[in-house]
């Protein structure tokens, strides 16, 4: 790491009402001495601990498992606990809250739109045979398993929702993560709600709204491609329309 970091952080009370700090969104600039292997979350935490205790942000696990520390760093949504400063290759950090979410304050956003999108696609597994004591196993080498596996590890960090240009213009659009989740369940032969989900995501606010721009894929910290899941959903919608009697 070359020298002192210049950190510009977008500040906001989120509501415009009197709060700390008051007034419309603005950028505050801080200087931080870098440390070896320092990540962006460390930088923000250090600023709060040593320079401005009023700085609001959110994190939980600090180990890349929960995704709650996601922020927009130098123009790209990232999980900050796993984003090493030295790998950004610059001494200037511009840190903003995730786009497309209501800002609670500073870097902390309200995840309600994301959670609501998830809820709308029936994100929980619904057993096709509820009375059965055990689930059928899907072999690790099976085509079904190979189709689902690349999409299963979502940690619901919300980076994709914040990067999606369709969400930007259409707040009713379900967004990449919810559609990705729907795909993993629709593709699962043990799930009993596939038809219901296919109906739920069949619209311009669902799969047909996606323009395959891959913005979501670009920012997913787990390397998941929601875009690909949505394309697969489109094919499943077509098959479902042509052969509605099949699952």
């Amino acid at each position: 790491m070359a020298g002192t970091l210049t950190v510009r952080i977008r500040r906001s009370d989120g509501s415009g009402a009197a709060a700390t700090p008051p007034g419309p969104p603005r950028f505050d600039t801080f200087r931080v001495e870098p440390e070896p292997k320092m990540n962006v979350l460390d930088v923000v935490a250090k600023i709060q601990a040593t320079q401005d205790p009023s700085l609001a942000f959110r994190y939980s696990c600090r180990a890349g498992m929960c995704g709650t520390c996601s922020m927009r760093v130098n123009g790209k949504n990232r999980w900050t606990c796993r984003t090493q400063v030295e790998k950004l290759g610059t001494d200037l950090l511009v840190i903003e809250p995730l786009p497309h979410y209501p800002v609670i304050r500073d870097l902390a956003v309200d995840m309600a739109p994301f959670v609501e999108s998830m809820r709308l696609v029936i994100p929980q597994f619904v057993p096709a045979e509820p009375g059965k004591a055990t689930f059928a196993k899907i072999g690790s080498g099976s085509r079904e398993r190979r189709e689902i596996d690349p999409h299963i590890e979502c940690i619901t960090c919300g980076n994709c929702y914040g990067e999606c240009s369709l969400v930007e213009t259409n707040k009713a659009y379900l967004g990449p993560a919810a559609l990705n989740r729907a795909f993993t369940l629709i593709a699962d032969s043990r799930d009993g709600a596939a038809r219901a989900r296919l109906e739920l995501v069949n619209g311009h606010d669902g799969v047909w709204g996606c323009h395959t721009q891959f913005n979501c894929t670009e920012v997913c910290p787990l390397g998941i491609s929601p875009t690909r899941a949505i394309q697969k959903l489109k094919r499943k919608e077509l098959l479902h329309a042509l052969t509605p009697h099949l699952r």
Partner: protein
Amino acid sequence: MSAPETRSAGRRSNGLWGWLLQRVSGIFLAYALVVHLWTVHVVNVDRLTWATISARLQDGTLWTVYYLLFVPAVVYHALNGVWGIALDYSPAPAARRGIALALWAAGLALLVYGYFGLRPLFGAGG
């Protein structure tokens, strides 16, 4: 702040067939445009006249089918694309109906205009 209760699980009008036809027309146009440009600007430079084109349209071969599909495919592909862009901005129901009506009217007008433009070439009126 988003109000979850204002969103519903019911998706607005299904876009499956529009999506499919957009791709079908797009694939056709990818072929048809190349044929059109090649025919007009490469192999028939300075040789195309009203008479040759009219004769080609009336010879009953695939050229007739080609031109009769070309115009509707272009009109559908273009206007359906505009419709998709409009939906991206989540218009209110009344605006949505207005946009749909305007696009249908534009499409029909273009087809009628195209039909009357082609009639003389097919030897009708003109």
